[in-house]
């Protein structure tokens, strides 16, 4: 089971993600509502996995991803995105994102993405 940090500007998205992840037995150890808050929480909490929303005001997910990876090159980050954001996804891959989840959330997609990242982590 993974210790997870959720970073998303939307309360709705944070709540849905938390519900799905806790329902699958993971533990959500923190939440951040923007990129900067997410970065600070990461340094404080050392989660196994971060779910990071791409579309956020002030500091978006791409910028936050770069900060996280600079802080910890082994950080496991799952990007949350709407459909049709290919350019942002290409950037995210370039900066080391591990997985992607497309909104609207499907429980199985979320659970599978976390499982995949945790397996990578073991290797």
């Amino acid at each position: 089971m993974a210790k997870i940090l959720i970073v998303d500007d939307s309360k709705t998205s944070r709540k849905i993600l938390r519900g799905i992840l806790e329902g699958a037995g993971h533990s959500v150890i923190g939440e951040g509502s923007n990129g900067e808050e997410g970065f600070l929480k990461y340094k404080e909490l050392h989660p196994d996995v971060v779910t990071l929303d791409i579309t956020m005001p002030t500091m978006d997910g791409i910028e936050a991803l770069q900060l996280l990876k600079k802080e910890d090159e082994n950080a496991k980050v799952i990007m949350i995105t709407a459909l049709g954001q290919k350019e942002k996804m290409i950037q995210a891959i370039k900066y080391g994102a591990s997985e992607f989840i497309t909104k609207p959330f499907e429980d199985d997609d979320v659970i599978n993405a976390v499982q995949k990242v945790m397996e990578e982590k073991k290797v």
Partner: protein
Amino acid sequence: MVEYILGNYMVSTGKISQKQLDNILDKQDQVRVKLGLIAVSEGMITQEQAEEINRLQSTCDKRFGDIAIEKGYMTQVQLEKILKMQGNAYLIFVQSLVDAEVLKAEEMENVIDSFRKENGYGLSDMEIIKSDDVEKIVPLFLPTEAEEFEEAIGIAVRAIIRCIDRHTYPGKAEMVTEVLEDQMVSQKLEGKTVKTTGFVEAEGGMLELASVYGREAFEGMNEDVLDAGAEFLNCINGMYSATISAKESELELMPPEYFMAGGKITGNKICRIPLWVKNKKLYFVVAE
């Protein structure tokens, strides 16, 4: 969709009562078999494949049958066969009206005729409505000036049908000079031009939409309702961006915004279409 469009018209003209309509639609809902169930029971696809298609359907702008064919799970001929088995929603509706003894079959022609004339539709338009094909019905509700918004509106309506309420139906859209309403959500999409889309609360439709998307039974309007509405709008705009980027350049989604008071959408061209979600009204707006 056709049973809701015609059913509500019949209620508004006093042909049948709201209660009669609700009863008929309830019964019809229990009878109408899902395409996935028919395909599985006919041995065309497996239960796992049906579930996979359902999952994919919620995140993209495609119909069940389209995905099944794309994935190679089913042929076009097989799809046509199960569509026929599922039956035509209009005829099932007429049958239900007759069975409930609220209308005789021959009276339906008058209903169709007055509906057609009142809305300025042609005979071929009525065939489209009877076909219950959402993709073709939605454009009938748009003014000609809204042609460039047809795709965005179509994607929004289909997404609401797939993800929120499969009985969602539209009313007549109109061009407006600005949208000034207290409670709304909006999002800018930046590409070759800047578009804005939004949901505006009217008679509880936003509350219904937010409750389903937010997985929470909201009781009244508050910021959480609007946050859920804004997130769903973001999903819809992502689907729209994916469609547009296949043809021209990608649209970048700006963070969605919400307003508890004094919301506003401006643009050179604005189209507003009423939608009934769980029979409660809200507006979807597109502006450029």
